Structures are given as C-alpha cells and as structure tokens.
C-alpha cells in the first residue's frame, strides 16, 4: 500500500527521532534545575542563605519575609525544580519576599554536626541575617521533611525571635505508630547498627539513604519510573518533567553523622520529641513553646513520612492559630508533582498571605 506508507513514514520518523533525542537527553545530561535568579547573602560553613530576586514591586509585596528550609539529605532545588513547575517562582509571583536556607553538602569534617547545631547555631544566625537584610523583625518559616523537623525544633526552642507563622510539610515528628512507618522497621536496633555505619562512613552516605527510601517501594522506584519514561518518550514535555525530577532524585547528599544518629536513636527509636524528652544542645524541646501560627501539611499518600507522623501535632503545640491541611500526593509529589500548582501551592498561599502582613 504505497499511499498509506507515504503518510505514515514521515510521522513515524519524526516520532522516532524525538524519542531518540529524548533518550539521549535523559541518559547523557542533567536537567537544569533551580534556575530562579537568587543572591547569596550569608554563608556559614557549607550553609548558604539565598534571597530570590523579587518579581513584584516592593509596594505590592508581602512585608513579612518567608524563609524556606529543606531537608538535610537532598538538595533544595526541589523547591525550584524548573520554570513553570517551581514553588519558589510561584511564591515570587504571589508577592512574597523569599529566602532559602541551603544546607550544602557535608564533608567528613561535618560528621559531628547534630540536629541542635542546625537548629540552634545555623538557623538563628541565618534568620538574624534575613531580618537585618529584609529590615523586618518578623518572618515566616516553611520547612519540608527533615527541614520541617528542624523548623519545629527552632520554633519550640526560640519562640520569641520574631517567628510569625510556621508551615510544616510532611514533617517526621511523631513515631508513636511505629508499625505504620516503613522506615521505622528498617532502622530498628536489631537491623541497623548506627554506630557501626558511622564508624565506617563518618556521615550517612547518600547512596544508603537513597537505597533505604527506594526499598520502601522497590518496583515503583527501580522499574516504574523508567516504564513511565519509556511510555512517554515521544512526549518532550513529559520527558522534560521526568528528567528534572530524576536529576534531583539522583543528586542526593550525605547526612551529617551526628544528625543521622540523633534522628534514628532519639526520634525513630526513642520518639523523644513527642514524649517531651528530647534534649538538643542541653535544652529540652517543649512543643508547647511553639506558639507561632501553624499550618501542618500532610500528604495522604506519603509512604516516607506517613500522615501518622504529624497528624496529632496540633494537640501538642502551644499555638492557638493552627490548622491541618491534608492533600492528595506523596512525600515529594505533594509539592513538586505536576498537579501541585493547582492544589497544594494555592492552598498554602491562601493561608500564608493572611499571615504575611
């Protein structure tokens, strides 16, 4: 059938060439992520405080600046994944003065850094700089994953430093329901010798953390992602999105040894934060001291930090203005998935804008 061949062949060829180009792209390059213009205004050791260049005139901007704090073992670029799918970009367009505390990559010399160092040495200094740079005595804080846990520690231990409101995203705080937390089993004392791991590596290697997280859903993580890519190889938009996420996922960083040890021993095994027995740099963390306005965002399908790890938080804190927001989505997809800009971001903006003036 010569006529049908003539109509099919050019289309097929173009499709095949798109697929080949996309395949080469994802296998040989890293996607450009974290592209929103920003300026480093403070550094300490590996940590850097960035201020994103505002896109809204000063008179239309919210006067209270917002500080973003991400987890310790992944890069913060997930907050600014790529143009058109960037939470930072969204916040800037909504008129927020956005700052980001990037923890950097710990080296062997940082193995002694504990949660207290991050929450009580680095965060207060970065916040001091933020306040002096922005000229505002008040600020809002948004923490994600371990970043949310650090923000909780900071907010409970330094409640009078100008914190106006706190947003916690997928925060691993409560370890009471041990059986519902997949990572908790993996980190039980009989299966994991934390001290031996740290004796060998100093810091918790990124590869081991990644392995642990991926083994929570092995087929989805090791196979599912690639079949999704293969199915959409001729769709450049989907491939670009996959490529950006894959670039971020494959670029994990080690977790400082002492912080990892505390996280496993004091929190996963001891559940000390909720029990009120957690001591950080000699200070007991009392969640009742957390008095800032609080929004606790939970991903209904989060398998890394399941809802039970923070859904009872509102009963434990001292805040009077507090709210829980349950959203569809997983640990990362909740905020960086393709639907985040329609669901999670507007809801966070709606809550935050009322507390940013």
């Amino acid at each position: 059938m010569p006529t049908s061949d003539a109509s099919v062949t050019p289309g097929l060829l173009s499709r095949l060439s798109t697929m080949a180009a996309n395949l080469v792209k994802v296998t040989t390059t890293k996607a450009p992520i974290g592209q929103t213009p920003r300026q480093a205004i403070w550094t300490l050791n590996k940590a850097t405080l960035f201020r994103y260049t505002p896109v809204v005139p000063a008179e239309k901007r919210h006067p209270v600046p917002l500080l973003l704090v991400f987890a310790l073992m992944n890069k913060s670029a997930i907050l600014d994944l790529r143009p058109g799918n960037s939470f930072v970009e969204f916040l800037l367009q909504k008129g927020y003065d956005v700052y980001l505390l990037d923890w950097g990559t710990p080296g062997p010399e940082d193995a002694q850094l504990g949660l207290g160092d991050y929450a009580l040495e680095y965060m207060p200094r970065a916040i001091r700089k933020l306040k002096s740079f922005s000229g505002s005595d008040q600020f809002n804080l948004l923490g994600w994953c371990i970043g949310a846990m650090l923000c909780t520690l900071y907010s409970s231990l330094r409640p009078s430093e100008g914190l106006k409101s706190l947003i916690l995203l997928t925060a691993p705080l409560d370890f009471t329901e041990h059986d519902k937390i997949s990572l908790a089993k993996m980190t039980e004392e009989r299966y994991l010798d934390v001290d031996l791991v740290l004796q060998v590596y100093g810091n918790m290697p990124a590869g081991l953390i990644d392995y642990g997280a991926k083994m929570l859903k092995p087929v989805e993580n090791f196979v599912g992602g690639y079949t999704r890519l293969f199915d959409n190889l001729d769709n450049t938009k989907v491939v670009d999105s996959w490529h950006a996420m894959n670039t971020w996922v494959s670029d994990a960083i080690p977790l400082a040894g002492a912080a990892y040890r505390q996280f496993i021993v004091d929190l996963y095994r001891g559940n000390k934060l909720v029990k009120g027995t957690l001591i950080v740099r000699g200070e007991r963390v009392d969640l009742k001291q957390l008095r800032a306005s609080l929004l606790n965002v939970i991903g209904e399908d989060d398998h890394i930090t399941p809802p039970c790890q923070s859904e009872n938080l509102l009963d434990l804190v001292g805040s009077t203005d507090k709210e829980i927001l349950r959203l569809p989505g997983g640990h990362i997809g909740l905020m960086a998935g393709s639907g985040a800009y329609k669901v999670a971001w507007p809801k966070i903006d709606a809550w935050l804008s009322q507390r940013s003036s």
Partner: protein
Amino acid sequence: MSSETSKGLLERVRGMRDSMMEDLAKVTLAWTSSDGFQTINAVISKPTLLTAAIFRKATESAMADVLAKLNLPSREDVLALSQRLTRIEMALDDVGAGMDQLRRSSQQQRPAPRERENHGGGRPGKSPTVKEG
C-alpha cells in the same frame, strides 16, 4: 487499519505489563517490609560493615604513621582545623551582626536632617541624607 490494530495491541500489552507490575509491587513490598528481608539485610550488611571498619582503621593508622614520618598533618588534624575554622566563622558572623546592629542603632540615634538644620548642625554643600546599603 493496521496501525489501529497495532495501537490496540500495544495498549493491551501495556495493560498487561501494568497489571503485572502492580502485582509484583505488592509482592515485593510485602517482602521488603517483612522481618525476613530486614534480617537478611542485617546479616549481609553487618559483616561487610565490620570488615570495612577494620580495614578503615588499619589504613587510617598506617596513613597517620606515614604522614607523621613525613612531618605532615594527619586526617584528624585537618578535620580539627576545619572545625576550628567553622567556629571562627561563627564568631566572625556574631561580630559582624553586632556591628550591623551598632550601625543601625547609631543611625537611628542620629538626629533627622531637618532637626539638624534647625539646630545649625547641617553642613553646607553636603547632602544631609543618610544612605543605607
């Protein structure tokens, strides 16, 4: 027509693959969250880690000897130096913040330009405006 048939076939194959993967995911998840899997992980990883720890200790001690003989700083010395530098950085950060605060409070205490002019304090030919960085 043939393209539609092949499309339909492809969809069927995909559907079968997806349902197979779904089943496999359930089975694998049940296995990876079981005590058996965690025990195997621990049984494999513990001797590996122990061997690595012994090897690391031996190489570190040999390296420390070599470096000491060459009159070079050891790994511990370099790590300690780095930690000390971070502490110095923190101290400098505190000093910088203190100076910032002093500068701001001295600017606040300084009389406003109009006030200075009224009291004859304005310097002719110079703008009394204080510019903040």
